[in-house]
């Protein structure tokens, strides 16, 4: 096997990046800060991997040109292997990929951010973005739901968010009476229902487990939101992130290039199971 280095740009080949910071968020998730200096939109994702283990898509949850932050939940091989890393280790990343949230077109609006569980990760990108462009948007409302107080992500940031924005955290079940960050017991949907909010100059961003998204959309529509005011993040199996391998295709749309963020009216007919 005569192998030689080639100079042609190869879309499959990731590059090594250093981990600047490794922070454990919850028992099964962690945040990694890598020294990848790129331009990207909130909601875009990268393919993160380790040699010999594989790659997986992870949303960028920060907004900076100096580094990227990734919040990762341990669910399988790649994510578990990543969880064993520490500051100073090297990971392989390629990207960014996908279409993020159309923040520029939403200038002048209020932003309603609704996240469930690990779905909060991509949404943090919007929060950071809005913070960096504070003048461009009116009110920021955050509605974040978790299963229990132990699952609450970004606890380091929550205090700041609480001071700056309208923040509501819910937990499905309050397991040990530790009511931090003013969290309420109940589902996000309930909190949404009781929220005094209208669709007036407001865009809603939803990310979370499929069931949660379904009910949140219903509530939003009850509150008068139009389909084109709602933005969703979708998740599918993907290998290439280049719009070729076809695993992430939802009725002809590729999650990796046409998504992962879709406006609800673009994909409401696309659910194919």
């Amino acid at each position: 096997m005569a192998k030689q280095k080639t100079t042609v740009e190869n879309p499959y080949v990731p590059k090594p990046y250093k981990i600047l910071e490794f922070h454990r968020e919850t028992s099964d998730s962690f945040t990694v800060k890598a020294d990848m200096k790129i331009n990207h939109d909130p909601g875009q994702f990268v393919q993160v991997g380790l040699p010999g283990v594989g790659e997986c898509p992870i949303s960028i949850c920060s907004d900076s040109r100096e580094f990227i932050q990734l919040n990762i939940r341990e669910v399988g091989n790649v994510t578990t292997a990543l969880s064993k890393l520490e500051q100073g280790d090297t990971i392989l990343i390629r990207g960014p990929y996908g279409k993020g949230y159309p923040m520029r077109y939403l200038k002048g609006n209020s932003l309603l951010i609704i996240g469930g569980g690990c779905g909060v990760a991509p949404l943090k990108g919007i929060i950071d973005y809005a913070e960096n462009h504070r003048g461009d948007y009116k009110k920021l409302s955050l509605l974040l739901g978790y299963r229990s107080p132990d699952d609450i992500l970004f606890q380091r940031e929550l205090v700041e968010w609480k001071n700056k924005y309208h923040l509501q955290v819910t937990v499905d079940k309050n397991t040990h009476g530790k009511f931090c960050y003013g969290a309420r017991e109940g589902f996000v949907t309930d909190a949404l229902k009781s929220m005094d909010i209208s669709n007036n100059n407001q865009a809603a961003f939803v990310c979370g487990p499929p069931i949660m998204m379904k009910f949140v959309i219903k509530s939003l529509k009850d509150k008068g939101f139009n389909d084109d005011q709602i933005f969703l993040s979708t998740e599918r199996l993907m290998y290439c992130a280049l719009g070729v391998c076809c695993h992430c295709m939802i009725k002809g749309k590729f999650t990796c290039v046409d998504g992962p963020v879709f406006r609800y009216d673009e994909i409401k007919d696309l659910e194919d199971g």
Partner: protein
Amino acid sequence: MKTDKNKKLKVGVYGITGCSGCQLSIIFNEEEILDLLSLIDLKAFPFIKELNIDEEFDCIILEGLVANKGDLEILRKLRRNSKMLVSLGACACTGCVPAYRHFTLKENYEHLLYKKQEELQDVEPSPHDEHVKVDYYIPGCPPDKKEILRFIKGSVRGVLPRPHQNPVCIECRRNGNACLLDEGKPCLGPITTGGCNAVCINGGFECWGCRGPTKDMNLDLMIKMLRDRGFDDRFIQDRMRTFVGLKLPMLERVMQGPKSKVLQTRFDGEKKFYE
């Protein structure tokens, strides 16, 4: 990384009733076996080792099925002593040919039963997971030797290879074989979990289903197709049960059910292959 690189995975390879073929499949990785040993801490492998240290294991790889009381004792003990139990081979995963005894007439083997000492008393031939929890399966009779390697290489790094779920046909077609069903032969590839690289079909033989049914099999259709090719129900049952009968408890019901009778399939090849 935080993992302690000097702490190797403590592995034990054992066999209960079986043909030793699965354990041989490990050794028969001729080019990699010596390297493999540097990856793990092989505490026990009685098949080729005199000194077998019986203690807490990280991973036990166990061949063979439960056929007598002694087997059952060993299985339970190994399960207690290990973080992870891996069933190696068809006997361990599905019962293989020895478990076909469940489907044969008692009179066929009755005369072979005889008085045995306590620990040799027969137990209904059964795969591991009928008795204890199994963490990982490496199916096949024999198991694919590369698959065993892949498993070991993965588990030392904490990566469990995704178990195969696709039918044998996927690999068979990829290997460029002509489809045996088109020649009227009774191939079970479509309902059998792949991972064997379709070795049997590559070798000119039909798949007998040794790696077990896929979760997604269309059993109704498979039965119908075999009937179309002139195979009677006795044949279909016998063939499907040879290796994995215990994992097809629904077979009889499906065969008697109405569905496979109405499906409209097309077969334009030769009828009847055997007889």
